[in-house]
Every structure is written in structure tokens, then in C-alpha cells.
């Protein structure tokens, strides 16, 4: 079952939905193997109490829409696609000490006007989701964190994106 409409903030995505993580090209990107570093949170993400690694629900957001929403940057020229059921099946190695399990949850985007927050109305914005459980501070040791990202990479299907054919559209273009 896929999601035709997004759920509430932190609600889990259906297991059969595909989510896409946009990524920069590695040296051997054409080999079809995802690089684990694409599943690393940035220090800005890490500063949040419960960060989520940004992904897009494919039944709601197209690759091109996701690319536009990420600033139409040519460097994001690959999509790493995973199923929530696969992500949830991943366990850190070693299993002890215990860590928070990975999940894929809705992660609504907002815009701000005069200090007031509104749901982001841009095309595809509703499909924003996030992988939770990757925060370094919540994973007891470094080996466990690296084991998680390398397993995420193993599960990913790599899709090259035709970003050269895409043009940046007006950022305010909305649904």
C-alpha cells in the first residue's frame, strides 16, 4: 500500500511506499551502488533533538519536484530509493547496546510569513518525509552508526536523474 495523501507529523509511512533520498554523485555512481555517506546527517540536522534524514514519498513527490524543492542544485543528480519495510528491518551491528530503531515518518514542510508558519504549498512538498533513528547522539557507538548507513546503502536502488534537462522553476510556484 502506498500513500496518496500524507499523514501527520511523525506518523509512520506505509511499508510499501517507496522513498527517495537525493544524493550527489560518487566517483563510481554509474556502477549502481549507493554510497553510505548519503545517509549521514549533517551537523545542522544533528543539532535538532530528534532529527530526520530528508527523503521524499515517491507516490506524492516526483524526482523533479524533489529536486526543485531542494534548490534545483545540479549536484543532486542521483536518487537512492528504499522501501520503509526495508529501512525498518535494519538493525545496528553490534545489536548491543540498544539503539532507537529506524523508522520512516512524515515530516511536513512549512513556510514562514511574518513569524507565522504555513504548510508549504509548493508542488510535491507534501511528500516530504524523514528517516528517524540516525542521530549520532542516540546511537551508542560509532561502529553501530556506520553499520546503519552502510546497510541503508545496500538496500538502496540507484536512479540517475536527468538534471541537465530540468530547469529551475519559480520557487513560489504552488499547488
Amino acid at each position, binding site marked *: 500500500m502506498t500513500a496518496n495523501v500524507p499523514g501527520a507529523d511523525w506518523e509512520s509511512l506505509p511499508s510499501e511506499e517507496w522513498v527517495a533520498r537525493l544524493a550527489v554523485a560518487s*566517483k563510481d555512481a554509474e556502477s549502481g*551502488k549507493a554510497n*553510505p*555517506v548519503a545517509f549521514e546527517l549533517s*551537523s545542522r540536522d544533528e543539532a535538532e533533538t530528534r532529527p530526520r534524514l530528508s527523503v521524499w514519498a515517491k507516490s506524492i513527490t516526483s524526482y523533479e519536484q524533489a529536486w526543485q524543492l531542494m534548490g534545483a542544485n545540479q549536484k543532486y543528480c542521483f536518487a537512492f530509493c528504499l522501501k520503509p519495510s526495508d529501512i525498518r528491518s535494519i538493525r545496528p*551491528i553490534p545489536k548491543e547496546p540498544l539503539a532507537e530503531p529506524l523508522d520512516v515518518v512524515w515530516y511536513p514542510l512549512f513556510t514562514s510569513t511574518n513569524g507565522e508558519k504555513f504548510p508549504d504549498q509548493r508542488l510535491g512538498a507534501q511528500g516530504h518525509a524523514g528517516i528517524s533513528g540516525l542521530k549520532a547522539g542516540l546511537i551508542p557507538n560509532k*561502529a553501530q552508526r556506520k*553499520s546503519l548507513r*552502510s546497510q541503508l546503502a545496500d538496500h538502496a536502488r540507484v536512479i540517475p536523474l536527468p538534471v541537465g534537462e530540468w530547469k529551475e522553476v519559480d520557487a513560489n510556484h504552488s499547488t
Partner: protein
Amino acid sequence: MPTLAPRHPSSDSASFATTSFELFLHGPDGKILREIQDHSRKILEAQAETTSERSRIADLKRYLGQVSSHEEEEPLISESTAALSLKAWSEIWSVSGRRLPVPDACPGPEGQLLYTWDREEHHLELEIFPDGRGELFYRNRKSGELWDLEYMVEDFIPAVIFGKLRLFM
């Protein structure tokens, strides 16, 4: 120069010397000839691998140049991290007796560079951080065996990693 192509021994006495040489070369079952052919094939394959490896090293240098280039608005890694990464690769390659394949490489969100090697169930990472740290991480996909080690790229690579590198050669 005698040909190495297989021939049937001739009963003609004028060609006795050639026939004797070919008999020696081929043996009753052509074993020697096959060994020479196998050896030649291995030399050609080794030469091809060397050429391919040289090309992959050039690709790595080019990639590190691209991701640290100031022609981009925001380089994905700094020039110093690119240089450090190249040094790290060069040293780990030397430690392996120049037999470790050229890795995949990709910049991370904190200006680090991640090298990865994959061979069947074996996965190896070397992550180079702008502060000079190198982090090695090995995972066996089948057994779940894990191994990791942190070192400073400017220092010597710990010799204990050689055993792990052999899994990828």
C-alpha cells in the same frame, strides 16, 4: 622462427628438426604449448589490469579535483581535504603492495570524504575528515563481523589493517 601453431608431426625426413622441436613443444598432448599460451594470456591480462588501474587512479584524482574545485559555488570538500584524501589513498595502496583496487569516493555533509570498497560480502570504508582523522570501518555482510579503527592520516597506517585489505585484493 618456429611457429607455435599446432601441427601434426610429419614423416618427411627433411622436416625432422622442426617436427622434433614441435613434438618437444607440444608434447604428446600439447601441454607445453597450452602452458605458454596460458602464460602469455596472463601477461596480457596483467598489462590490461595495470592500464585499467592507472585509468581508475586518474579518475580518482580527477574526481577529487572536481569536488574541491572553486569553480563550483560551494566546493563539496576543501582542497586540503582533497589532498589529505589522496595521501590517505596513496598510503593505504602502498601498504597493500599496490594491489588494493581504487575505491569509490564521495563527499559527505561535513566536508569529509568517504572511500568504499566492496567485494562480495566484504565492505570496507575509509573516511577522511578535514581535521586529519581517518576512520577505517569493515563490515562482513554475511557474518556480521565488524571492525573499526581511527588514526591520523599524517601518521603511519597501523599495520594490523593489512589482513583486512587482503580481502579486497
